[in-house]
């Protein structure tokens, strides 16, 4: 495929994710004003930070009058999962020039990761897969900024937008990403353990429960996978 075809395919494969991000971006845009952000700051956060869940948590904490240090610490913990995405995709982008790696990293969201990873594991010889990455990323970015603006305009005319439960869109998106990955026992066990730990630790501050849950799930998945391999080795 040519660069242009890869780019287009990336945009197209991102479309379902855009639907999921749509309500989430709108609700962010509509609530940020009440949390004390000016319209330029609301837009600025979407343009410069570009991290849905962190932005969302930041404005809910801002409304609660939390200080700068706690806000930044929370951002760090909530976004730490992106380090794992960065590590997962690194083998596929290591051959790219620095300017490509610097740019693509900025757009490395949950949604981009899920879609782009699918493209990279396909064993074809395309040398333009980074154009696919770019297409998927830009689609998500433009959509997120547009939704923020819609939310800022729309939020003033629709009262109680926060009570509609638009945040369910994020859950639906993540369910759509995770469920097809549950193909074997280690993956299912990783999901169950992560869920259990997340529930038990949900009251921990700064979303530390999320990190505890993630690492528990990963450890259980790896241990089970190693055991399966060991047992098969004995049979053979």
């Amino acid at each position: 495929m040519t660069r242009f075809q890869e780019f287009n395919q990336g945009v197209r494969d991102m479309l379902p994710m855009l639907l999921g991000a749509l309500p989430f971006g709108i609700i962010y845009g509509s609530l940020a004003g009440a949390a004390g952000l000016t319209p330029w700051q609301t837009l600025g956060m979407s343009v410069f930070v570009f991290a849905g869940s962190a932005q969302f948590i930041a404005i809910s904490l801002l409304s609660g009058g939390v200080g700068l240090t706690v806000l930044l610490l929370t951002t760090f913990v909530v976004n730490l999962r992106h380090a794992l995405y960065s590590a997962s995709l690194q083998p596929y982008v290591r051959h790219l020039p620095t300017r490509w790696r610097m740019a693509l990293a900025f757009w490395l969201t949950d949604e981009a990761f899920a879609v782009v990873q699918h493209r990279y594991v396909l064993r074809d010889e395309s040398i333009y897969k980074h154009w696919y990455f770019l297409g998927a990323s830009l689609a998500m970015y433009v959509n997120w900024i547009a939704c923020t603006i819609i939310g800022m305009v729309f939020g003033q005319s629709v009262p109680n937008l926060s009570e509609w439960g638009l945040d369910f869109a994020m859950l639906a998106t993540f369910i759509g990403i995770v469920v097809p990955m549950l193909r074997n026992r280690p993956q299912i066990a990783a999901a169950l353990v992560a869920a259990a730990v997340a529930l038990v630790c949900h009251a921990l501050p700064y979303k530390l429960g999320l990190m505890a849950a993630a690492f528990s799930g990963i450890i259980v998945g790896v241990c089970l996978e190693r055991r399966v391999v060991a047992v098969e080795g004995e049979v053979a």
Partner: protein
Amino acid sequence: MENWILIFGMMVITYSIRYSLFAFPDLRFPPLVRQGLHYVPTAVLTAIVVPGMLIPDGQHWQFSVNNAYLIAGLITIAIAALTRHLLTTIGGGLLVFFLLRWAMGQLPI
């Protein structure tokens, strides 16, 4: 002004995390780490979704049939398992969720 400092800080933190491993193209991971990376999306996203269904406001458990997040979440999981199609899952899940909220009188209309 305080808010712009916040935005700047969030930008630096988020970008540093995302760029962390892209910044070192020559770094190779041991097999154990590579194996662990396969479980990252499953573990992280499940850890966000399940509390979102059972503790929608982040504080109070809602183990009840009146919890649209829980019921619609379970139906969305079923749709995902049966269709394995992303757009159907997200679109169908949202539709079920808002129909449930409407039927339960939980929408502010």
